[in-house]
């Protein structure tokens, strides 16, 4: 299993995917987004533990993370970077992908993913991150 994550505002948007066959397949999960709303130690811990639990529960082996934009007009907010740091603390490899890399890949490629109807539209950028990782073969 792999998962794609996009950080948007104060939320990590997550897509769980099965990478065990030739074609990547979306796995239906209620665990679609997790927010970091307040700047409190207990909530940081809770965010991290909840994410770790999701990863363990689903035997996720690698995370493909769409990095929050760190410069320019569309620079992400402070919470996005806090979330990025927390995601990078998980025990499995986290591959950070630049937003422009994903965008350029998406322009040149059609997404061929099974069960794509199981995701919500807002999860699409996270799925692109997972798909890019899958196609580039870094997870195999």
């Amino acid at each position, binding site marked *: 299993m792999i998962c794609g994550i996009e950080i948007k505002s104060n939320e990590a948007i997550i897509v769980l995917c099965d990478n065990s066959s030739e074609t990547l397949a979306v796995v239906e999960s209620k665990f679609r987004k997790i927010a970091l709303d307040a700047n409190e130690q207990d909530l940081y811990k*809770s965010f991290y*533990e909840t994410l770790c639990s999701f990863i363990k529960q689903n*035997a996720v082996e690698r995370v493909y993370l769409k990095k929050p934009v760190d410069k320019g007009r569309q620079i992400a907010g402070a919470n996005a970077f806090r979330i990025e740091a927390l995601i990078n603390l998980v025990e499995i490899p986290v591959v950070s992908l630049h937003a422009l890399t994903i965008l350029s890949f998406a322009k040149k490629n059609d997404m061929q993913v099974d069960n794509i109807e199981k995701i919500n539209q807002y999860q699409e950028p996270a799925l692109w991150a997972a798909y890019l990782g899958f196609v580039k073969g870094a997870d195999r």
Partner: protein
Amino acid sequence: MKINQHIESVVDAVKNSILSLSDIEIDNYNNEGCNGYVFFGNHKVFRSRVAIKYYYYGESAHEEVSLIKHISNPNILKVWDAHTIEDGWAYFITDEQSNGNIDSLLSDSEIDTNTALHIIRGVLGGVGALHAAPNFLLHRDLKPANILLDKSNSPIIADFGSIKRMPENSSEVVASQHSALYRPPESYQGGIYYYTSDIYQIGILLYQLLGGDLPYNATCYMTKKQLKEYLTIDDRCEQSLFEDNCLFEKARRESLLNYSSLPQYIDQRIIQIIKKATKAQPSERFHNIADFQLALHRIGSIPNWSRQGDILLCGIQNESYRIVRNRTTKYIVEKANSNDRWSKLRNSSAFDNEITAIKHLLKCI
């Protein structure tokens, strides 16, 4: 009873073993458990407090110890060492947890909301590690007495006597007969136990931690008619079956937990989480530990309520409030100033009852 008398009272195999432990100075004993002996002492080499559990190994041999030895999680009791001794007895050494267990915490004091949530998050973390690959373990006996607390009130899941590994290609194991009050309906009905059955037990635990009333005496759950019938039963075994039946009915009807006994300030969203975790139908509960954790996480930052005698304290975002009774026995809401003095909250009057005062305070913050 002094420690030497305790040592004299145990079986010879255990007594001989204790007396031969040169590195551990035994000074305390716990007789609350029913399967084995637990001693405490100072480990001279580790220079720390340790607990030594002696147990008689039957058919399952050292399953309990070997299963937990391979799990590394801060919320699961760490086993340092294990040995077999004579006559079928064995022991293992763990850290002593200085703050007792949740049962003693519940009986000694009222727990504030944040501590309750901190404990339950830790329990979920520990149980999540048990359930996840490659362990695939079900605890089957999650209750306050089986959860120890360390110095910072972080929970340490202990007592793995009922632990069971989920067989491959299966979604259920045989139910444990322990702790009738915490048994989910499916364990009575079909004698089966799922991963979500552990979730059911954690739901009850959360209810208790938040101040929900859960009497340990089974007769408290009987109707007048049932109690009358119960009192005519002489045989202890029959009585026990009758008690189990009453508790099963309560669990099946989702009426075991009395939500009106929870303090008025408990957030409705947390009550909904308890209700979902303790659904009679396993498929209606949280599907897994991560879903349970996510639901708790989504509540976000909530006021930390605690009670000190007649005073109800509430802390949120570095501000402190309290609800106290004034001389005219009305309830007033006060806020702490920067110099630690209390003054009446602006725009608040005196309230006839605590519930109205709580509602007013919640509206203001």
